[in-house]
């Protein structure tokens, strides 16, 4: 791999960019992801995971088993928002910022 080799095809992140994160103190796939967006593309890191792990291994000397995999988040493959929605408009955990505004004696608290 040379410096310009593309590691993440979805986000077009080069080897050099991944290496910079590690040399600044990053150690995990998620550190690389947050700084470069490597792994946030449509394939959600399916293609780039192993190459990033290899670079971390080479630069830090950590064994591959010590390098945590990217945190896999629901949904594992893209899904339409309407599939998740249940069309209810009553909320409990989800808030509206105006709910927090309290009026007391005609004035904002």
């Amino acid at each position, binding site marked *: 791999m040379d410096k310009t080799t593309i590691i993440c095809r979805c986000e077009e992140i080069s080897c050099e960019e991944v290496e910079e994160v590690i040399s600044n103190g990053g150690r995990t796939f998620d*550190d690389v992801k947050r700084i470069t967006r490597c792994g946030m593309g449509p394939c959600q890191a399916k293609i780039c995971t192993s190459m990033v792990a290899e670079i971390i291994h080479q630069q830090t000397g950590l064994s591959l088993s010590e390098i945590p995999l990217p945190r896999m988040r629901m949904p594992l493959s*893209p899904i339409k928002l309407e599939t998740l*929605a249940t069309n209810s408009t009553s*909320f409990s*955990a989800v808030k509206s910022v105006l709910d*927090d505004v309290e009026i007391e004696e005609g004035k904002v608290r």
Partner: protein
Amino acid sequence: METNYETIVIGGGVVGSGIAYHLSERYKEGVLVLDKKYPMSGTSGSTQAWVWVHNKTPSWYAEFSMYSAELYPYLSKKIGDVEYKRTGGLSPFFNESDREKAEKLAESYRKIGIKIKVLSREEVLEKEPYMNPEVAGATYSSIDGNVNPFRLIDMYMRAAKRNGVRYSTYNKVTEIKKHDGKYAVVSDNGAFECKNLILAGGTWSREIGDMLGVKIPVNQLRGQILVSEPLKPFLNFTISGLRQANNGEVLMGYSMEEAGFNRATTLDVIQETANMAVQYVPGLRKAKIVRAFSGIRAMPEDGFPILGKVPGHENLYVAATHSGVTLSPLIGTLITELIMDGETSIPIDRYSLSRFG
């Protein structure tokens, strides 16, 4: 590695790195930031990152937030492009009965210089054409916006390092001792000594305080966010509930749950969040969700920032807050003033830890 520092900051999130950067503008040597992981692995990497002001309450807290938002354009000139956008902020309501409350808010805040407009349904739709036509109205202010939190921390760190700040990452602080007027900070990779110690451990503040016998009453409050595939730009404003990032992704969510340090995403809150998003912007129905994430807010017991000197401990400072993205430029500025000048340009007494008794 050098073990003697003038100042050590524990925690390199948006609050700790913001302080370290602002300190480095005033003195070039002797600042160390310790983080148990890499900055952004805490709450600052799992946030909506609105720079939000207009409907914070009470008014003195909104005013405080406004001063911080005002610092953003200058900050991005100094440290580089952090993708700060003053989009204006829109808080929709769906019941006409909320209008009176909105008017009261606008009236009270005019006095402190925060201009809020209460929009009619037509005005909302004119500003944000993809908003649900069933909306009743919205509060609007041009002061609100958003920032890219990853770029923000990365730029803070780069600028701080250029000014001589050292970072030690993957280095957890396990013990803090006080002797001869100095602090000895014991970490996984050795012990450090400093005169000034700043606790910026976010949602972990309580356990860091315990190391010194100081009670920092910060609790955990989880929030979950859904992220869409990149969509062509179609949302103009930061809507309290969702926003479109520079790369086209829409980040949706404004939820609060007590779940300790558990960073799981859960189907019930994901569904509620989806319901909120389609209620606000029905056109999102067909958008594909590529990711969900959750973060744990640092929530002080009374809901307000804890900032400033720790009473009874010389040269010990604390900065723990929710809305840390909004507040970081101001917190960095004020803590730096406190350390360098012994006083702050705007009063922060009401944010003192001493209020908890």
